[in-house]
């Protein structure tokens, strides 16, 4: 089958059981979620699933012909490996269609313990070359790689071709990491908690909002990250999205507070062989998820029918009302 003409799968975020049902109802082909602990990289307070909620969520999704991918994509903590292994056991037992992993030793363990379980490689593993992909595909039988967001469309095309028969999945919408994923210590430098170790970035436990003369000042770990002036929209102070001083001037040094919106590149990405489009946002509300999923489902269906894509409505959902195609177009660098 010609991979380029197959309709890409839409992979949608499920931050809570209600979020999972919302994504399923809105037209997801698959949803991804995690357990309520540090085994996944969205370990925010009040988010995620306990064991029973996962089983119920999988049942609901399967009733609607939707797959469930369970993320256990953080790096196992020294001396606490059993927490991740139990997560693997419970996710497999609950009927997860695939597990999304990053830690090499966890991948090796899972492949050995569950030879038939479908495994996806998380973006947290930062596999950005054909050789890196070959390592995971050939050694561990990884079936799909989520590609880092720091790649251009040309680079993605090369990787999709080299990865075959391993599939590729690409982020098309949502919060953008500007640093290579899974290799960023900015958060633990400021707060002691990081995506790799604790499954959080710029954790809310270390976020402080303070009003001053109508301006809203947001700090992380005691460091001022952003000042929202009176009348400007506010945001979450993700460390790499803040404003800093360097070489005498103040700017959004690492990245502007934009969100990824690759909707203009969907056809290109499908043409170069990308198997699945991923929407970021497990920590976002049901309104965001429903609107994003519906719109991208329409887009993906339109592509499959050879029709034009209409996506004006997606602009409104992006944080700070601005969006970007990220690194996918080379001008970003």
């Amino acid at each position, binding site marked *: 089958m010609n991979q380029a003409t197959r309709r890409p799968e839409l992979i949608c975020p499920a931050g809570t059981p209600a979020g999972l049902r919302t994504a399923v109802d809105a037209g997801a082909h698959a949803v991804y979620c995690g357990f309520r602990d540090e085994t996944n990289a969205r370990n925010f307070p009040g988010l995620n699933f306990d064991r029973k909620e996962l089983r119920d969520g999988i049942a609901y999704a399967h009733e609607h012909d939707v797959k469930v991918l369970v993320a256990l994509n953080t790096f196992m903590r020294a001396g606490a490996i059993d927490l991740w292994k139990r997560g693997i056991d419970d996710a497999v037992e609950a009927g997860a269609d695939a597990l999304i992993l*990053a*830690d090499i030793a966890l991948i090796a363990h899972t492949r050995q313990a569950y030879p038939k379980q479908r495994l996806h490689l998380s973006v947290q593993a930062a596999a950005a070359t054909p050789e890196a992909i070959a390592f995971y595909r050939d050694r561990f039988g990884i079936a799909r790689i989520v590609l880092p967001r720091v790649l251009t469309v040309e680079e993605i095309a090369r990787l999709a071709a080299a990865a075959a028969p391993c599939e590729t999945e690409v982020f098309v919408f949502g919060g953008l990491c500007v640093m290579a994923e899974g290799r960023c210590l900015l958060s633990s430098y400021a707060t002691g908690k990081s995506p790799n170790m604790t499954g959080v970035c710029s954790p809310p436990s270390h976020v402080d909002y303070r009003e001053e003369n109508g301006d809203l000042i947001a700090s992380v770990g005691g460091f001022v990250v952003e000042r929202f002036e009176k009348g400007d929209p506010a945001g979450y102070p993700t460390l790499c999205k803040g404003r800093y001083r360097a070489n005498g001037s103040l700017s959004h040094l*690492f990245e502007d507070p934009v969100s990824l919106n690759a909707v203009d590149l969907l056809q290109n990405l499908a043409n170069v062989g990308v198997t699945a489009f991923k929407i970021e946002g497990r920590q976002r509300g049901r309104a965001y998820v429903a609107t994003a999923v519906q719109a991208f489902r329409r887009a993906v269906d339109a592509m499959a029918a050879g029709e034009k894509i209409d996506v004006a409505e997606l602009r409104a959902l992006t944080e700070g009302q601005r969006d970007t195609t990220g690194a996918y177009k080379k001008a970003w660098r």
Partner: protein
Amino acid sequence: MSTTSRISLTLGPVLYNWPTDHWVDFYARIADEAPVDRVCVGEVVCSKRQTFRDDVMFRVAERLALGGKEVVYSTLALPTAKREVDAIRELVEANYLIEANDITAVHLLNGRPHIIGPFLNVYNEATLALHRSLGATRVCLPPELSLEAIRILAAGNDAVEVLAFGRAPLALSARCYHARVHAVHKDACQFVCENDADGLDVLTMDGKPFLSVNGIQTLGYVVTAATRQIGDLADAGVASLRLSPQSCDMIRVAKIFRNLADAHITEEEATEALAVVALPGPLSDGYLRGLPGVRHFDEVD
């Protein structure tokens, strides 16, 4: 509870874009005077800089070998282009001792003995064991690990290395921050990163020093120094300490750590001696203490 084996010293690769002449002179002095056991050479951050090193790298390596240092070839931490991967492949095929900073290199090494650099994620004992089974003889751990975690990782093997001096590398991007700050595109950058031998300092909006940038790399502002944890690291069975070069007198820094590791000076004396070296930021041991990495020596949480 003390160890009988001697802790060795590794000079990590120069992360910054030092002018070629300076780079060569630096290694000549290191070869002759620095009490380090092994020296990493090679470009880890930006392949555009590699062209400056190509002509001189092997000459420098020879000089270091003559000086009795084990030479390690550090490879790129974020290879993406084919030519970047080919450069790694060439080094592997020439049978040099390679430091792998990306899984690409591990794949190309295909089981040959090698070193794992601090840019690969080795956070637990199982991952460490896996890398050793793939040929890693030495593993430099990620800077964010605490002493508690290091103890678990170093137990029962002699493969663990810990960053003991230098600004901690925190992140890598596809975007070049030096180019961005100077309002040029990465492809026409004019190598502005050459201006900042310790990285370009980054402050918060209200003027607090916070981070530093070096091309596509982000590092801490503070300077990691493990002078107060040497005893604990030795007891834990850590095999070697990595000293990451800053623009200060690295011979002096190496001597301080050698004397400290050999118990010829105390931790206080070592800390005092470091304090008068021209460092780009205050001394920090936050990560080792299980605190935010930015914490200075005397700061509690």
